[in-house]
């Protein structure tokens, strides 16, 4: 029979096959074709870091942070896009969801998701950063030893496609008195934020696609608001309504939180634009350089004001600075990857990056932030991050 033949050696001569020189995956059938791919099981450690703000009492309140130290390039895979939610991710049936535009408009309008998908679109690569990103590095009196993602991972970047908000607003017809909009989400928290009409007409987008496919549930499926360069919380996810108003609504998250208290007891409200910022991701906290020699310093930079113009690096804690190479085009409101070769001589070093944007904004020092904000100020921390390399090669979070 066929089977009997197949297991009987056919050749008399004791010659060899090459099989023993190869691993099993080169000599046995691979996995079959599949409809939706996943990362290798050997990369299971590349995952979002979960920080529940109130433990299991509120399983959907807190953040899932992007492991930026494990990633390269500028696109965040959608499964690893950071998630900051206030009462979990709603599982929205798109056929039962709509976007309502009302308030100070001529024609209040409802848009079904199906109809919105027929609108002319734009694609833009934009970062989203939580205004609370890097808060621990400002609040904690001593530097917390953790990964770059744990400390600074509330930043992600995607190729977003959607409808310019101006198109929908023009269809509804904004009254001259309509100077602000309050956007609301369909989540259990009913997340709501106010933003000025000027931003709406300039570059706000109703995003329906994220990195090619429809926006992911944790990022606002079936649609989210995008206000390029402005604090993450305003980019309302699961967007259900836009109400045109004369002034800001003073919602909880533009009152209790996301305001910036000053040392004199006053607080800045409606601080929207994110500062120019950069993070060295390699090497970074909790890593260990295995030996002296050549390394590439690599990281991400961005600015809420537009394009990053330059990123400077220091390996001696800010005494000397040199320019990093920007890898790829610097786009407005988008991450840019920076790189520079660095030879580690085995001695302690302090690695810092300092981004400068097209408007000349420069990353401030931690000391400058502390001097200008209340003792508990924590939002919009775009200060220079320091990674200390110890003599044994271990990399630590440091304040300088």
């Amino acid at each position: 029979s066929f089977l009997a033949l197949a297991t009987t050696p056919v050749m008399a001569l004791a010659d060899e096959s090459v099989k023993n020189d190869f691993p099993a995956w080169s000599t046995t059938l691979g996995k079959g074709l599949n409809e939706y791919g996943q990362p290798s099981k050997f990369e299971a450690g590349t995952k979002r870091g979960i920080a529940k703000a109130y433990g299991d009492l509120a399983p959907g309140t807190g953040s899932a942070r992007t492991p930026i130290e494990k990633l390269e390039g500028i696109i965040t895979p959608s499964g690893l896009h950071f998630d900051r939610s206030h009462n979990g991710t709603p599982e929205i049936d798109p056929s039962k969801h709509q976007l309502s535009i009302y308030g100070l408009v001529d024609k209040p309008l409802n848009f079904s998701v199906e109809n919105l998908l027929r609108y002319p679109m734009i694609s833009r690569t934009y970062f989203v950063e939580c205004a609370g990103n890097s808060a621990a590095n400002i609040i904690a009196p001593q530097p917390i030893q953790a990964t770059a993602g744990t400390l600074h991972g509330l930043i992600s970047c995607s190729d977003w496609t959607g409808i310019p908000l101006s198109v929908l607003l023009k269809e509804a017809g904004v009254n001259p008195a309509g100077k602000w909009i309050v956007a609301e989400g369909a989540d259990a928290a009913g997340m709501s934020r106010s933003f000025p009409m000027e931003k709406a007409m300039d570059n706000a987008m109703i995003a329906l696609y994220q990195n090619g496919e429809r926006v992911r549930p944790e990022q606002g499926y079936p649609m989210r608001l995008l206000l390029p360069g402005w604090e993450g919380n305003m980019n309302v996810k699961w967007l259900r309504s836009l109400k045109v108003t004369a002034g800001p609504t003073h919602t909880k998250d533009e009152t209790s939180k996301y305001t910036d208290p000053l040392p004199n007891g006053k607080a800045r409200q409606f601080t929207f634009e994110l500062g120019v910022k950069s993070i060295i991701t390699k090497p970074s906290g909790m890593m260990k350089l295995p030996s002296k020699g050549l390394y590439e310093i690599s990281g991400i930079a961005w600015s809420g004001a537009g394009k990053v113009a330059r990123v400077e690096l220091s390996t001696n804690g800010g005494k000397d600075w040199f320019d990093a190479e920007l890898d790829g085009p610097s786009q407005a409101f988008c991450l840019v990857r920076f790189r520079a070769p660095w030879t580690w001589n085995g001695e302690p070093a302090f690695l810092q990056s300092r981004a400068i944007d097209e408007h000349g904004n420069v990353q401030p020092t931690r000391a400058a932030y502390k001097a200008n904000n209340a003792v508990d100020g924590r939002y919009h921390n775009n200060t220079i991050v320091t990674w200390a390399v110890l003599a044994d090669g271990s990399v630590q979070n440091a304040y300088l």
Partner: protein
Amino acid sequence: TSTVKQSPHLGQAMTASDIKKVDISIGPDGVGLPVGSGNAKTGLKVYEAQCLSCHGAKGQGKPVDALVGGIGSLSSDKPVRTVGSFWPHASTLFDYTRRAMPLQSPKSLTNNEVYAVSAYILFLNGIISEDYELNQGNLAQVKMPNRDGMIDFSKEKSVVYK
């Protein structure tokens, strides 16, 4: 970065009743507040049934945010920011409680319950009296301690440090 795009005009007209169902946001001037009322006494009952397990007895906090305290602390070196000490407008308390609380059953409180529990929280903060009847007409007039504590930064392009 603006892009000129034509619209296929697929929006469907909303009726006044459609809008009424969608619109739950309340401006600082009280516009949007529903008919209804409540005071701290009834509010105490709502609070104990619906809020205490998370926000603690008398809004003292634990396990989650305190809703009481900190008035006068904002310029100190230990500022305590709560509804009482930090929120400029009472409208925010009504709006947020109605849409988002209690956490496990948001939007379940009736309008009167929201007025009442809001009154209770304002009372705990010493802002209104225990029998003050909070309603559609007077909620926005409540003088919050930090009413003038916010600097409108919406016209600034970026936070700059000296």
